[in-house]
């Protein structure tokens, strides 16, 4: 049943990358519990515009949990208090009437704030550009059953491939480590024959880029897995470690 609640929002406002930011507090009334968190943010922005104030800048695109854009740290959790969802999939029914909701941008040295809640997640793109692909030699289409792949490997690769590159892992990590993302991207290819060929070079190139961009050292706390909207398992991190160490040892 639809209900509406009143909330107090503590939102991080920052005019630009180099400017010092601060929290602003806004009261927002009559928020439908059926609305999504982003719809609530839209409602806040309409209110701000009608008051001739500058609307809050935040990233979003698909609004259905597949693009990974909606980076918001809500009440101490990336993508909010609900599990296995993105911010755009978070509903206002998760909040109580009168609740104060704190909204912050991802905090990580490698994800600098552009404005308000929008951060530059380009570091993840750079890691992909360093090796997160397969160099395909085009030719005739091979027979679908020519290369056998076990169900276990196919499933693991698919689980890893569910990563949407949202950045919640690095945002949640006390070490600012991007290992869950890199592990997912290395695993999805290393587990399949097409990607296996370049496995060693890929692991080295992507880890080198990750380190260069200033992400931290993983100490296996597991906060990333707990906050990942796609529930990517830290067992992929073990695979990444294995891939990387074996590649370095065989150099």
């Amino acid at each position, binding site marked *: 049943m639809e209900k509406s609640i009143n909330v107090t929002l*503590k939102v991080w406002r920052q005019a630009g990358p180099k400017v010092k930011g601060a929290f602003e507090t806004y009261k927002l009334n009559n928020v439908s519990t059926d609305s999504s968190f982003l719809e609530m943010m839209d409602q806040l922005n309409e209110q701000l515009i009608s008051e001739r104030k500058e609307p809050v800048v935040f990233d979003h695109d698909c609004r259905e949990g597949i693009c990974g854009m909606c980076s918001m*740290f809500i009440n101490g959790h990336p993508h909010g208090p609900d599990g296995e969802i993105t911010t755009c999939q978070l509903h206002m029914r998760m909040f109580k009437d009168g609740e104060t909701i704190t909204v912050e941008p991802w905090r990580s*040295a490698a994800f600098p704030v552009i404005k308000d809640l929008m951060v530059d997640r380009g570091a993840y793109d750079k890691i992909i550009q360093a090796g997160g692909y397969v160099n395909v030699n085009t030719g005739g289409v091979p027979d679908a059953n020519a290369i056998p792949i076990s169900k276990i490997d196919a499933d693991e690769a698919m689980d890893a491939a569910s990563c949407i590159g949202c950045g919640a892992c690095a945002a949640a990590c*006390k070490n600012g480590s991007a290992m869950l993302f890199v592990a997912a991207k290395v695993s999805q290819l290393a587990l399949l024959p097409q990607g296996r060929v370049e496995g060693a070079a890929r692991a080295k190139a992507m880890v080198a880029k990750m380190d260069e961009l200033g992400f931290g050292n993983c100490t296996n706390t597991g906060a990333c897995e707990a906050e990942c909207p796609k529930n990517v398992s830290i067992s992929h991190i073990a695979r990444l470690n294995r891939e990387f160490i*074996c590649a370095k040892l065989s150099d």
Partner: protein
Amino acid sequence: MWLINSSIGRKLVMSITGVFLVLFLLFHSIMNIVVIISPEGYNAICATLGANWYAIAGTSVLAAGFVIHIIYAFYLTYQNKVARGAEAYAVAGTQEGVSWASKNMVPLGGVILGFLVLHMYNFWFKMQFAELTGIHTGSFDPANGAAFVTELFSNKLYCALYIVWLVALWFHLTHGIWSALQTTGLNNKVWLPRVKTISNIISTIVILMFMAIPLYFLIGCGASC
């Protein structure tokens, strides 16, 4: 050098030195247990591991293991602080499944280190060091380990201090052992819960063996039973 320049390389050094220290603890705790079973037997071990070349070599390698582990611990922690960024979260939630130990490896390591210094003074200085230098540091012959143990643990405060130390070490190990396996890549989806359980079992066995000694003296068995 990838063991210094890459994050996974640095973690590998942490894990190898960590596992080496765990193996040492296992060896050390098995030797210690002997003091309860037979003080004479324990003194025989102390005599064997006195100022011989192999005991000195072992001690040097062990010290190197500690030093490398600790230097890397601080280096990694510093880098991780920088990676986190200048601004901290105003509200930081906790996650289910993230152990307290995993978030406090440095403070736990600090407690371990502090007590380690005390421990070296209590025993190593009065035993191997005294034997090496020939100076008189304790009330007994350097090889009379059982006498040093009895003397120290007749003080209830020392028993309590050692127990606190061992609790910190237990926490460090519960995360450390499985983390080391994960870091070296010896883990997967099926083994993840098993590796964590193995880690808890090994930590508990090692710590109980160590703790048996102050407990044994604390309940007053040192003198009579």
